[in-house]
């Protein structure tokens, strides 16, 4: 159990989670504005999809950071994996929006697909698979969960059960 004083300190110093919350809120807000713009009288403006193209990676990255942050340790080496994946998603979406439509029978194929499709399928769809689950496994004991953590929870559960049983009897 954390002492109240320690708790306050932890909350104040938990800048990683605070930053993640601000980023999550900003990402969701950008997505909301993008959707809102679609209701404008002249139809969806050209800039609306760009808000989603940036807002979605930011919101997903922020959500992962929020989940992975561990007290004062923050996200440790996971910052590289998160930065990579947010960049891959944002660059992939923005490239798909920005690159001109040149698909034709003469298009150069990348692993069997035209360039913009290859960016989407292999970039957005496959690159994160190579990085994220491996980063999760490699940092699992230090960043996510170890035997000591599980034992602390079990110990507290035993104390709670004992207290509850003594109150009942």
């Amino acid at each position, binding site marked *: *159990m*954390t002492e109240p004083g320690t708790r306050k300190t*932890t*909350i104040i110093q938990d800048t990683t989670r605070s930053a993640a*919350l601000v980023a999550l*809120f900003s990402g*969701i807000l950008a997505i*909301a504005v993008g*959707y809102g713009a*679609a209701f404008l009288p002249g139809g*969806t403006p050209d800039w*609306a*999809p760009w808000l*989603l*193209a940036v807002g*979605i990676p930011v*919101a*997903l990255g922020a*959500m*992962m950071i*929020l*989940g*992975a942050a*561990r*007290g004062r340790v923050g996200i440790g080496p996971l910052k590289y994996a998160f930065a990579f994946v947010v960049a891959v998603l944002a660059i992939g979406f923005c490239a*798909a*929006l920005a*690159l001109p439509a040149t*698909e*034709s*029978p003469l298009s150069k*194929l990348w*692993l*069997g*697909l*035209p360039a*913009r*499709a290859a*960016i*989407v*399928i292999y970039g*957005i*769809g*496959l690159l*994160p*698979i190579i990085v*994220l*689950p*491996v980063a*999760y496994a490699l940092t699992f004991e230090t960043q*996510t*969960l*170890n035997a000591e*953590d*599980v034992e*602390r*929870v*079990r110990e*507290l*559960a035993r104390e709670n059960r004992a207290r509850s049983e003594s109150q009942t009897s």
Partner: protein
Amino acid sequence: MTPGLPVPNLLLQAALPSAARPAVVAVGVIYFAVVVAISVWAARKTRTASDFFVAGKGIGLIALTVASVSVSVSGFAFIGGPGFIYAVGLGAMYIVLPAAVTNVMGAWVLAKRMRLLGEARNLITVPDAIGARYRSPAAQGLAAIAMLVGIVGYMATNALAMGVVINSIFGMGLGWGIWIGMGVTLAYSASGGILAGIYNDVFQGTLMAIASVLVFLFVLGFGGGLGEISRTILAQDPSFLGPWGKLTPLAALSFFFVFSMGSLGQPQAVHKYYMLRDPLQLKWYPLLKTLGLVLVLLLYFGVGVGVKAFVLDGRLAPLASPDQATPSLLLNVTPIILAALVFSGVAAATMSAANSFINIGAAIVTHDLPVAFGRRVKDELRWGRAMTILIAVAAAITAQRSGTMVAFLGIFGWGLFASTLVPTLAVGLNWQGATREGAIASILTGLVITLALETAAYLKFFRFPAGVTASAVAMVSSFLVFFIVSWLTKRSAQSTIDPDVRLVMEL
């Protein structure tokens, strides 16, 4: 239903062509025999409510992973999905591309904390976690009601999907298909609970992965490789292979948002975190689940793109409807044994999803709702079995009688779970500043907006702009409400967290 966006057939409802060939029927019979055998074994091992609802928290890593893959995809991955690609091109991939991040995101955001909460409090349901986090029976009850509304729709559509597939395999009529499919699912759900469900999911998920890989390889071989398939399509319909296919960028990105962030609120997947025998086995869970999903989704991409090319070059006749993409390929081109495997795989997918939702629905009625009203059911196992039967029968009757209403009920299930559960559960378990007022306001917002917008669109009172969906609007709104109300009521934030819950949140 959302007129502004092309809506994929998320839960199989359109009639399939008859596949009643001896090989297909034989594989179907073998499939059902294996399901029955697993169920009999599981029934003997189910003795308590914990066994029934969370498999006694004793499932190993591989079984849990395969089962989780199995319930994540449903029949959509095999029929509706490839058909949607055939109709709108690569834009349909934005429904499945999020799988690259969702499994590991779920592991970081929810898996550890849910599993440890289960350890600390003996929790057995998703609303249990919400009740424990906010020390609020009201939030738990409200989440349970929202989930129940979503489950009613999912169950009816899954019952209909089972009927469609079983009728296609055995040729016995839609009504009989619904009742036989639901009867078998009910038999193993009521007798063996989630234990039967998990091990049937393992069998079904393995079948789906094998079928998917074989069909994908066959399509590549038949089409001369992905490059040749692409050349054929680019010659006649280049926009099909554009980055958004035939969708608008906003529509495609909207799919990505709803199916990535929304995955954190899908109870059939989240509920499984409780069941892992050893929390430390979570280490390999995201990697294994992601690889499993990639295998199962190969068919989605391969058939969707392949059939488009085969129709364009005249090797397949034009399809009567997009949902015919997979059946047309299987019944006209592939070896019949492959068709048999896939049809059994589709039946497996629908039964797997139905079983999960029956179990979760029964837990809500016998556990969460009584807890919300300050009561406990004395014999949760017996009542759980009774509710399982009731939910399954109600779903079968709804599927048989209510026609287009079933489609409407099924379509908002995913969005309803996402908008009501994601902020409250996924953010709430990771942010000590979240308050019970924020949670309750967020769940209510998701529930009301989803129901109001979907109903207005279904009744044609309202039409969304292209690319905007009720699910997306509801999820964004419930997020914003959750943040704003939590910040407005932040004084109460710390006082609503019990010490053991706080420890779980700080680890």
